[in-house]
């Protein structure tokens, strides 16, 4: 979906149409969650600090996000997808991978299906969508950005390799700012240069993802479209209006974050073994502290004492602007099942 949150707001409120708007908090600590295309012309981007966005675009209108509404529309769009295939892998509220190799409408052309879906979204929901069509998830995702907004791009099997060779490295899905600048240091600026590196070289410098890069630039990606992706973590976090400097204040906030996390854990019906506390300091550096325990837990009364230990374990090196709690090693992972085959005494 194009500028999803912003487009929804403009659709629901005609006064906002044609104006630069940003969905997100306007206050000192706010962050832009989505910017309308009118705002993007001024250089306003998502994830930008609201203060900076307002400086770049003085007429910017800040709109409070209404996640319930976005979710509702997201479900509407997803139900359109399901008319074509059951193999839908949601990537976020406004993005999804669809495997239409075998589809319910017996249309052999993925490009035509994409067009039809985009028209239906426009007619039935009222929003613009973009699509990328290709031989695997990675190339399709990259392709979807090319004719944005309100467009689509097909990269056929015989075009894939050439397309990837000419692609700037920072356009690769999964290459963010940090990896891109690291790639640049290694003299890799395009897909072609990436392709010239050996697997050994890439894994040495980029670890596990090196292997991934080696494959994707060759058009190889064997990851299937997974309709029910297994959640690997559940988290709750919060940014504060004012930086916190003492552990007592942090615990007070973590207490609320813990309530939220517990709610989410109960809702998704999972338990986890590793508790991680995330601290983002006032200088934006992030630190995580974690502990893995022997049992799967999901209640606050079980994980909060561990959170407390982790906070007191070491003095925070600075005042803190964001705190979060994450639970990983969830009991929905495959190998957790084989471990639970170990029977326990009934105490």
């Amino acid at each position, binding site marked *: 979906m194009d500028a999803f949150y912003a487009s929804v707001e403009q659709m629901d409120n005609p006064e906002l149409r044609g104006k630069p708007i940003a969905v997100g908090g306007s206050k000192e600590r706010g962050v832009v969650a989505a910017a309308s295309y009118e705002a993007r012309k001024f250089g306003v981007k998502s994830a930008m600090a609201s203060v900076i966005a307002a400086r770049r675009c003085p007429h910017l209108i800040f709109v409070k996000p209404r996640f319930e509404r976005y979710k509702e529309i997201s479900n509407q769009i997803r139900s359109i997808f399901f008319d074509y295939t059951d193999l839908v892998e949601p990537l976020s509220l406004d993005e999804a991978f669809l495997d239409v190799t075998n589809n319910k409408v017996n249309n052999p052309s993925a490009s035509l299906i994409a067009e039809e879906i985009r028209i239906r979204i426009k007619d039935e929901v009222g929003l613009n969508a973009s699509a990328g069509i290709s031989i695997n998830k990675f190339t399709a995702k990259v392709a979807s950005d090319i004719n944005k907004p309100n467009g689509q791009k097909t990269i056929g099997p015989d075009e894939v390799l050439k397309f990837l060779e000419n692609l700037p490295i920072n356009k690769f899905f999964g290459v963010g700012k940090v990896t891109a600048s690291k790639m640049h240091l290694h003299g890799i600026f395009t897909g072609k240069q990436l392709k010239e590196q050996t697997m050994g070289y890439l894994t040495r410098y980029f670890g596990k993802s090196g292997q991934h890069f080696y494959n994707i630039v060759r058009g190889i990606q064997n990851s299937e479209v997974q309709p029910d992706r297994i959640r690997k973590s559940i988290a709750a976090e919060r940014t504060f209006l004012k930086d916190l400097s003492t552990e007592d204040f942090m615990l007070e906030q973590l207490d609320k974050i813990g309530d939220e996390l517990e709610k989410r854990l109960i809702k998704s019906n999972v338990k986890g073994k590793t508790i991680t506390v995330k601290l983002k300091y006032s200088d934006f550096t992030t630190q995580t502290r974690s502990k893995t325990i022997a049992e799967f837990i999901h209640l606050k009364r079980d994980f909060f004492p561990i959170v407390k230990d982790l906070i007191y374990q070491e003095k925070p090196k600075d005042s803190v602007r964001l705190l979060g709690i994450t639970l990983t090693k969830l009991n929905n992972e495959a190998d957790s099942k084989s471990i639970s085959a170990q029977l326990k*005494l009934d*105490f």
Partner: protein
Amino acid sequence: MNFVISSTSLLKHLQGISGVLSTNNTLPILDNFLFEIVDGRLAVSASDLETTMRTSMEIEAKEEGKIAIPAKLLLDVLKNLPDQPCTFSVNPDNFAVEIAYDNGKSKMVGYNGDDFPRTPGLEQSNSITISGEIISNAINKTLFATGVDDLRPVMSGVFCEFSPESITFVATDAHKLVRYTRTDSQASGSSSFILPKKPLNLLKSNLKGDEEVKLEYNDSNAVFTFNDVVLVCRLIDGKYPNYEAVIPKENPNVLRIDRLQFLSSIKRVSIFSNKTTHQIKLKLAGSELSLSAEDIDFSNEANERLTCNYAGDDMEIGFNSRFLMEMLNNLDTSEVRLEMSEPSRAGLLMPSEDNEHEDILMLVMPVMLNR
């Protein structure tokens, strides 16, 4: 305050108690040894607030006093000194400590000994005397079975139960359980408490086996006094699980087998087991025991056959091989008995021969096969 002491004798005493020193102390003074001279005896203590250990020795000293000396510095210098008398001079005004020895001297700054946390006194305590051999045996046999679960702190310690007939030590992590009972030592009344791991490890390394240990305890603390050592520890607060209830009574399938043969066979087979489950399968039929393991992810597998003495129905049961190895390693008899009922119920492992004063029962929960 000045005193003279042999470097090796002091080092030996300090090393005995240095296990108490914690690397993440909340109070900086706990990174020190507390030296106290009273009546011509030097007492040295180390503490982490939960556990405190004190050792004492005869020395040459004219005056009394106390000082806290940085533990790591002191241990490091003593470790590197050949045996010789060392003269300690303490300046009571600025707590500077000077150690003079053959080649020269070293200086460091200590803390006021009065700031060192006091060990809690033991009010309304019970007392019992047990031989060091029994305590160290009990620790060796049970400690490995304790849990590491922060959510069940009671299971991270060893449960001690005293009665007029016997004394019993129990450890469990909910997967395995050990019950060690001695009838050659009794208490006057009935009582029970849970000892944490750290003091047990310290006892294990400090007990020689031939001493008598005086144990005093109340609801919150226990004090062990033996040789020239006093160990004070806080007890784990909480209710120990009802372990007797989980020990199955009817176990008609009984395997008798040579302990070392069984152990080395498990060791070999388990090399090929799944690295997360460590699962091995025991198949019992007639007088033959087959052990097998497989790791489907890597197409690894191993099978072995052992002759054994088996009375019961043919059965297949899965266990975590690590648990079995730990348990077999902690038994001493040449033959062991494994009693089972069903593949989903606990197996009981014990020595084949009964010992007059000692009863060991180990219990291990199985792993469900075919999943």
